[in-house]
């Protein structure tokens, strides 16, 4: 029993880590509540299905093409929607409204094109899997966990060791000062959208490969990303990653104690609690650093 709980926590965390990291990366650089991230996440598996089933691509290549398409879609949203608004001096609230509109429009476009029903991306049937610590996990799920945690390590390394990473941190902490220092913040934000949306696509593909996909799967993943990003803070990428692990553990415990159907309510009750407690404890200064 305990082994299966650990396996479930690891699997859910591994699947959601890329989208949560992507959301945090976009939020800390652009200060935009990018709700459309949930819809961008769904673009990857559906296009992968098209590339694989219609164009005849091998599944691996179709998945890579789908993720690339999600990355381009996210960058396109930044380039055509958010950037003109930012130049005009629009508030983050205005951009949040645009992202809500985009979420509805993209999700329903996918529904229109592929239908609301469940679709299967993987052509093979799921096996019983292997036993680890008394819990069962399939090879595909192990790959999803490794990929999720691998994304954290790679992104953290990129952020620490590369010029791009330093530029990301500079824009996140103080965009005006970053601009004065010669960093072109608009390009940095665009790159954050490109990589963040690609990461969302990775999550979308893993979820779709594990269970059947529907146009609404992105919304649930986005919700957990928001909880992880807000609870974990935005100063480092490890914050959202650690808070996602904790959140998944709490949700598994809640599922056992009060039923799996209440997991979403518990996650968002935690989010409300975290936001209110941060204000009560005066941690607003820390949040301001993350979201100047």
């Amino acid at each position, binding site marked *: 029993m305990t082994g299966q709980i650990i396996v479930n926590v690891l699997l859910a965390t591994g699947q959601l880590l890329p989208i949560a990291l992507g959301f945090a990366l976009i939020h800390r650089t652009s*200060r935009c*509540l990018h709700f459309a991230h949930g819809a961008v996440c769904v673009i990857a598996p559906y296009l992968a299905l098209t590339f694989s089933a219609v164009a005849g691509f091998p599944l691996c290549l179709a998945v890579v093409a789908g993720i690339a398409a999600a990355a381009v879609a996210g960058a396109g949203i930044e380039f055509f*929607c958010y950037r*003109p*608004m930012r130049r005009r*001096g*629009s*508030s*983050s*609230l*205005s951009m*949040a*409204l*645009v992202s*809500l*509109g*985009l*979420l*509805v*429009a*993209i*999700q*329903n*476009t996918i*529904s*229109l094109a592929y239908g*609301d029903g469940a679709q299967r991306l993987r052509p093979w049937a799921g096996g019983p899997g292997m036993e680890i610590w008394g819990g069962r996990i399939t090879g595909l799920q192990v790959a999803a966990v490794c990929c999720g945690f691998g994304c954290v390590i790679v992104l953290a390394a990129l952020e620490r060791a590369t010029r791009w990473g330093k530029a990301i941190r500079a824009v996140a902490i103080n965009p005006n000062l970053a601009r004065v220092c010669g960093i072109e913040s608009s390009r940095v934000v665009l790159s954050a959208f490109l990589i963040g949306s690609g990461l969302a696509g990775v999550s979308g593909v893993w979820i779709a490969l594990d269970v059947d996909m529907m146009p609404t799967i992105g*919304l649930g993943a986005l*919700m957990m990303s*928001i*909880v992880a990003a*807000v609870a974990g803070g935005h100063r480092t990428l490890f914050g959202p990653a650690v808070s996602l692990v904790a959140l998944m553990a709490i949700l598994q415990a809640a599922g056992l104690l009060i*039923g799996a*159907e*209440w997991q*979403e*309510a518990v996650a*968002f*009750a935690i*989010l*409300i609690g975290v*936001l*209110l407690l941060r*204000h009560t404890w005066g941690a*607003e200064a820390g*949040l*301001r650093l993350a*979201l100047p």
Partner: protein
Amino acid sequence: MEYLVHLGIVLCIYMVLSTSLNLVAGYSGLLSVAHAAFYGVGAYVVALMAIHWHSPFWLAIVAATAVTGLLGGVVGGSTLRLRGDYFVITTFALQVVVFSVLNNWVALTGGPMGLPGIPPPVVFGWTVSSQWGLLLLTGLCCLLTLFICRRIVQSPLGRVLKAIREDEVLAQANGKNVAAHKTLVFVLGASMASTAGAMYAYYVTFIDPTSFTVMESILIISIVIVGGAGSLWGPVVGAVVLVTLPELLRFIGLPSAVAANTRQILYGGALVAFMMWRPQGLLGKYAFEKKSADT
């Protein structure tokens, strides 16, 4: 004719919803993504009272406004210091929690199966079971909501709300109790949304949680944005545009599933287009363009 009456009832319900959200978001600058939650709570309170206790119309309406007003007061009071993005995230979270409760508390709400068989309202001994009667009732409810909103925005309270929207610190420096005013407007907005929920429950006679999702909240926001936030008539015009124009899709022979998705795409697209090119909407005076202190 029956179809036009149906359209009129739906239009009145959305006018009440958008006018009440306009009071919170347009006049006070508090962008709530939880309006469908208040709408849903109102609908469920009325449905439960009507089904289990055969409550008269007025008692059910009073109970619904009291319960949602209390919920709005708790939410408004506890989130007073949250601004901008954090307020949006908190109301988004509240919307998800309320939907989850409506969907999973099967013993009380019927869960995904919903609550069927809501009896027609009885107003002063008159059982309103015809469509025309319900149109009259929702129309009166809509007019009453508009009248109350007009009185509020033209009163000193309305001026304080606008002052808080424009500069909260300055309003506080001028001796205005920002916390009390924000809580009050949230209570009022939530209570008005609950009356729309009550009308919806009485009209459709069956409610389930899918009518009160975050997508419904986004639709109400779209109506306010398209019509124009911070203007009394903006949400009315927005409701007319966004409720009636997508109805044209019915007449071009699209299958219902395709028409439903197309309608949602139009709502989302309208929200994006207006926020990008005309953020003040068709008649509005406020464009959510002010950068808050936290963002």
